């Protein structure tokens, strides 16, 4: 039976799509069969980050409306054979999603995959509520700033009340993933600390992804960062997070500022 995992945040631009792609690829690299589903109907991005934008024929809405079969819409990753993408439609909007349609697709995907990663759109409206609707677990992507943390708090409240699991009196297992963590700014006290965030959200931590140019570079070439440069700091953090999702006990590493030799020599501070 597949695990349905929603990657959500409330706030936009915090790294949901990047994290979905990176975690999906990392789980697939760990031998799991994975499908990443783009719920951002009308503003799809996951296909770009996965580098599959030129192979999209059918999409989620086509399958919801019965125009295409699921097998016609699924796109297999070129690099990992057990990683698949179900793209969103760019020409429609979230109203084209229905509760029953999404339920049917999740049920059908459950028979084929170990993991179903749902990339939620920003906001708390239809797209976001349907992305989380059938989730067993949730990754709440949060930046170390107050607006992002408050929106995450709101989303956690919705995960506890608006999901099928919550309505059955069960709980969605929730994890906080802190992204765009800048050790230099943290050291100067310009960001919320990890402790602050965890105290406010009262939810276990899945990982801390450092702010890095590697993330942007990977997105630009259409590759999940864990595939593009597996040795980079963000990739290692995502791989650790994916292993924690699989149940491994991995020690948490808080990224620290690393001054380069020349900077240290010249007394420069990293920007």
């Amino acid at each position, binding site marked *: 039976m597949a695990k349905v995992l929603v990657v959500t945040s409330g706030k936009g631009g915090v790294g949901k799509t990047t994290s979905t792609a990176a975690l999906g690829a990392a789980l697939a690299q760990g031998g799991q069969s994975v499908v990443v589903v783009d719920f951002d109907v009308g503003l799809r991005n996951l296909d770009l980050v996965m580098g599959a934008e030129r192979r999209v024929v059918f999409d989620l809405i086509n399958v919801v409306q019965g125009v295409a079969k699921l097998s016609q819409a699924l796109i297999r990753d070129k690099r990992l054979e057990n990683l698949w993408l179900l793209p969103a439609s760019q020409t429609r909007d979230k109203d084209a999603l229905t509760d029953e349609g999404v339920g049917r697709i999740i049920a059908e995907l459950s028979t084929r995959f170990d993991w179903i990663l749902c990339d939620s759109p920003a906001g708390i409206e239809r797209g976001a509520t349907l992305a989380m609707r059938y989730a067993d677990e949730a990754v709440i992507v949060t930046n170390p700033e107050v607006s992002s943390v*408050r929106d995450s*708090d709101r989303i956690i*409240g919705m995960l*506890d009340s608006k999901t099928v699991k919550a309505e059955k009196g069960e709980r969605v297992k929730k994890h906080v993933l802190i992204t765009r963590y800048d050790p230099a700014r943290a050291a100067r006290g310009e960001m919320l600390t990890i402790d602050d965030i965890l*105290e406010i959200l*009262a939810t276990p931590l899945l990982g801390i992804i450092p702010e890095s140019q590697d993330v942007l570079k990977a997105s630009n070439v259409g590759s999940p960062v864990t595939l593009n440069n597996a040795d980079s700091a963000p990739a290692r953090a995502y791989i650790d997070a994916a292993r924690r999702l699989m149940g491994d006990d991995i020690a948490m590493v808080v990224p620290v500022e690393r001054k380069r030799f020349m900077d240290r020599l010249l007394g420069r501070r990293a920007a």
Partner: protein
Amino acid sequence: MDVRADPTRQLVRLRGRSYVAFVFSPVVPIVEWLSEIDTTLARSPGYFVGKPIVLDLASVDLSASAISHLVGSLDERGIRVLGIEGVDESRLAANMPPLLTGGRACVITRNEPAHRAEEPKEEPKPKPTSLLLDSPVRSGQSIVFTEGDVTVLGSVGSGAEIVAGGSIHIYGTLRGRAMAGVNGNSAARIYCQKIEAELLAIDGYYQTAEEIDPSLRNRPAQAWLQGDTMKITPLN
């Protein structure tokens, strides 16, 4: 000449008197309309006892037998029909209430004895006077409990609110809004383990985050009313 003399000649004296009657205006389907009457009767049995009832059939088209059946159905419920209006006289059989005309609408004033209305009330279950929440209250959630105190085992997030008729106890950080004593209870208080509130209110008197003394921040505190001013003091 007529020899028979009436011993006393009774004079038939006719007097006019007006009464306020309840007017029933049945609508189709009659069965559902009757069940509405039943609901009213279930709530207050004897509500129509001794009341003059007039049946206004203007909005329905019923045959003579249907009218007869309707009058009979009301009779079974202890409702006796005084007269019928809004129907052609030919539809009314001899044994039916007479046709009435010329009614004027008026306001019904209820002057039932007060005790009668109270009698059928069952002893109500005592409602809980406190609410316990054992998980954090998240941003966007609104907890409203006007019957008494609210206790939260956890934090109240920024953008969340607690509204209580009584006091509010928060075993965690209060980052959202807390409104106590909303029913006019000026003795209600707000307690929290860490105060970072956006707004505190007791019985309508409130303070926003800007007005709260910054030296209290992050400390255990309580808020209460002293006359017309809200006081916030540390608890340790």
